[in-house]
C-alpha cells in the first residue's frame, strides 16, 4: 500500500539531450523553471543525477556520438524506470532522418529512440508545448505506481 502511495506522490525526472536543435530542451526547462507551468505542483521534481531519477525524458534524434552516454545513463537509473521520447526528433528522426538530397539523409543518427531504449510515452510536436509535456508526465505516474519491482 505504501508502495503505490509513495510512488504516485513523488516522481523524479531527468532530462538527457541527445543532439537535437535544443528547442524541446527549452520547452522542458520552461515546464520546470517557469512559474506559468511549474511541473513541481504535480509532484514531479527535476534532478540531474540518474541515480535519483525515475522517468527519463530524452530529446533529440539519438546521434551515434551520444548513444553510449545515453545507454550508460539509462543503465544507471535504478528500477523501476520509464523513458519518454519528447519531440518529433526522438519519435521518428524529424527532418534529419527523413529529408535528404543527393547524398541521402543524415548517417549520424542511430535511429529513432525506440531502436535504442524501450519507450513508454511519446510526446509529438516540434517542439511540443509545455502543457503536453506536463500531461504526459502526469500520465506516466500511475504506470510507475503499478510496476512490479
Amino acid at each position, binding site marked *: 500500500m505504501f508502495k503505490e502511495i509513495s510512488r504516485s506522490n513523488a516522481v523524479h525526472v531527468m532530462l*538527457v*539531450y*541527445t*543532439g*537535437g*536543435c*535544443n*528547442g*524541446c*530542451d*527549452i*520547452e522542458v*526547462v*520552461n515546464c520546470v*523553471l*517557469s*512559474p*506559468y507551468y511549474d511541473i513541481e505542483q504535480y509532484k514531479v521534481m527535476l534532478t*540531474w543525477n540518474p541515480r535519483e531519477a525515475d522517468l527519463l525524458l530524452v530529446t*533529440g*534524434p539519438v*546521434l551515434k*556520438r*551520444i548513444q553510449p*552516454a545515453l545507454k550508460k*545513463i539509462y543503465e544507471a537509473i535504478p528500477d523501476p524506470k520509464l523513458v519518454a521520447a519528447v519531440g518529433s526528433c526522438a519519435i521518428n528522426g*524529424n*527532418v*534529419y532522418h527523413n*529529408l*535528404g*538530397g*543527393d*547524398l541521402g*539523409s*543524415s*548517417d*549520424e*543518427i542511430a535511429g529513432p529512440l525506440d531502436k535504442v531504449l524501450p519507450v513508454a510515452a511519446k510526446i509529438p510536436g*516540434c*517542439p511540443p*508545448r509545455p502543457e503536453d509535456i506536463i500531461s504526459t508526465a502526469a500520465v506516466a505516474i500511475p504506470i510507475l505506481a503499478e510496476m512490479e519491482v
Partner: protein
Amino acid sequence: MEKDRGAADVEIPVGLVHPALLEPYRPRFFLEDEVVKDCEITLDSPHRGIERIMEGIPVDKCNIITERICGICSCVHLWNSVRVVEEGLKIEVPERAQYMRVIINELERLTSHLIFFGHALEIIGHETLAMRAFIAREPFMIMLGELSGNRVHYACPVIGGIRPRCNPTDDLVQKCLKQLAPAAEYLKDYADRILQDSMIMSRVDGIGVLTKEEAIKYQAVGPTARASSVEKDYRTTIDDFKYFDWDVVVLDDGDVKARVVQRILECFEILKIVEQGFKNLPQGEVRNRDWKLGEMPVTTCYHEAPRGELYDSYGLDEKGKVRHYKNRTPTLTNLGAMEVACLGEHLTDAVLTLASCDPCICCTNR
C-alpha cells in the same frame, strides 16, 4: 599580453550532461588548487551533418531544415538562408514583409536574451531570479505564438516575402501593442532588481575578463565582443533595418558583468524597434510571387544572430536545387575566446565564464 598557461596538477572534465550545460559539449579544465590553468573544449557531439543533407535538395525543403539547425535562433537562420536566394536572383521583398520579418526576428532575439539570464542566474545559484526571467519571457512567447502559429520555429520568411499566416490583422497589431507596455515595465523592474543585488554582482564583477585586443585576436563576435569595446553589429548593414531608429550598445569592461549588462541594455533597444515596427506597419501585400528559380552562383550573406555573426552561402543549379551549402555560426569563435578568458579563475567562475558568452552548440556543430 598573453595569459599564462602554466603547470597544473589535476584535470576535471565536465561531462556531456550537466546542469550548467544546456547542450552536450565537453570542457576539460586543468586546475592547480582550484584555479584554472588551461581549458580545452571538445565540440563535436550534436553534429547532424546538415551540410551534407543539403546537397541537391530543392530550395524550399532546404529552408525547412535550416530553421531546425537551432531552436533558439531559428528565425535568423531561416531569414539569412532566404536572403541568399533573394540577393542572388535579385528578388524584391515588399515593405510590409520587411517590417514583419524584423519584428519577429527581434522578438526572438529578446526571448533568447531572456533565456540567457535565466540560465546564467541558475548557474550562479539564484533560482528565484532565474524563474523571474521566465516569467518575463512568457508574454513574448505567447505573442509570437499568436503572430506565427508556433512558440518556437516560426517559419515566417519565405522567398519573396513572408508566409501569409504571419500577416497580422489590424486587431492583432493593436493587441500586441497593448501587451508590449506592461511586459516592458516588468522587464525594467527585473533588470533593476538584478543590478542592485550586491551578492550577484559580487559573483560576476571582474570575472572572466576579455580585453579588446584579445577579442579582436580571437575573433569574438556579437554581444561578447560588444562588451569588450568592439563596435560591430551586422544589423546596421542590412537593408530591412533602415526604417528603424535604434542604437548599438557597446561597453568597455569585458568581464561577465559587462556581458550581462550589455544584453540587458540591448533588450531595451529591441523593445524600441518592435514598438516602432508595430506602430508604423505599412499596408500592402506580403509576398512577391513573380520570380523564377534558376541557376544562381554561390552567394554569401551575413546576418546578426542573437550571439553574433552568421554566415550562409550556397548556389543553385539549373533545376533550382541547392549546391555547396555552407553555414557558419558565431559560437565557434566566441567559445574560443572564452577558453582564454577563463584562465586564472576559480573553477566555479570558469564554468560561469563559459556560459556567459551564451554558447549555442547545436548551431556550431550543425
